[in-house]
């Protein structure tokens, strides 16, 4: 196995961790805001690692740009949507969870 492959595998495993954490957060966190938090962070980082892993594998700049574009899009959209959702939740009168 080449070094790139090793790095890729490593990155992918890392991303898996983030995704699992995100899902766990989605399921286990007590309220909307927490879930939102867990989710966006975990997800976008997870995806970022996947993108990174694939970028290493790629052999052309085009592919790299494409991958980056996808990641950036998800990042921006995800962040904004998370923000909007949170705001909407607030408007709708959801109280943040307190212990």
């Amino acid at each position, binding site marked *: 196995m080449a070094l790139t492959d090793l790095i890729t595998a490593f990155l992918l495993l890392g991303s898996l961790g983030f995704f699992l954490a995100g899902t766990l957060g989605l399921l286990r966190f007590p309220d909307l805001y927490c879930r939102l938090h867990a989710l966006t962070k975990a997800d976008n980082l997870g995806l970022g690692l996947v993108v990174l892993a694939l970028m290493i594998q790629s052999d052309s700049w085009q592919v790299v740009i494409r991958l980056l574009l996808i990641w950036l899009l998800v990042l921006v959209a995800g962040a*904004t949507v998370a923000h909007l959702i949170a*705001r909407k939740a607030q408007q709708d009168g959801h109280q943040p969870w307190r212990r």
Partner: protein
Amino acid sequence: MELALIFDLILLITLIALAWLLLASSDIFRAVVLFIAFGLLLALAWVRLGAPDVALAEAAIGAGITGALLLVGLGRLGSAEHYRGTRTRLTFLQRLSAPVLIGVMIPSISLILLLELSLHASATPGQQGLVNVLLDVSGTNHGVTAVLMNFRAWDTLLEKGVLLLALISIWSLDQARPLFRQNDISPQLTGLARLLLPIMIIVAGFVLWQGDHAPGGAFQSGAILSAGILLAILVGYTLPTRRQGLSLRLLLAVGFSVFLLVAAATLLSSDYLLKYPDSLAGSLILLLELVATASIAALLAAAVVGGHPPDDLSKPVDRSSAVNGGQT
């Protein structure tokens, strides 16, 4: 390929479970969200089946248009989770539910068993070969596009007709109403739109261009564009609303019209419907795809808006409130 098979298996089980759950769900909003998820997974299924064209379309529709359509519809239906006055007694059909289920499932299962038996017996080569042979003269380099825009262009023409017809139907039913609350558009949202819109346009162009030699094409591209238009409407961009009469209708109809004109021209010149001259095939297909993209984008967005634009012919109802929704 064991892993792939397990992937398929889990994907399909999830899909089926999702379908069942969403249809059985008592909360209609939940059903809609589940349906959006269903669309996501379905796109994965298309990918797995080696049909990226379909996956692209499913992604564009499922993630964008259908979701918007259903959410807007749900919003307009009001707090639609309640069956008014019908909760008290089961209807005839509901009582029939179990027998119906059995009646549906048994034939289906036997059909699957039949497939099991026969698929092994007869494996036809499909038309892959024929399409590949004829690809050179089709004016495009991608099989699906060749089938859509040339070999079976008649279907596509009629399909464009269905699209336009759907819009006319929608317009005949209702007047457009605003899609959203008039108030507060957050700067983040506007920023998002500012960022996404140009990308959407570029991606749409890219998908359209790519359709010539790889998965992509007019419909997918148009769907992306329409999502862009929707986004623009949602963040409160008021596109020219006053003068939308003829120009809007022209935009909506241009895809189908040009297709019809090409059909008529080919019929006049060659006696065969939609037989493009060899030298012109490529450019004709490009032309058709371009206008189709424009129309599809407008049509899908208008379909989500739902309703005809306010105009002088119809009764002067809530013109003011229709401004932001009555356009595309």
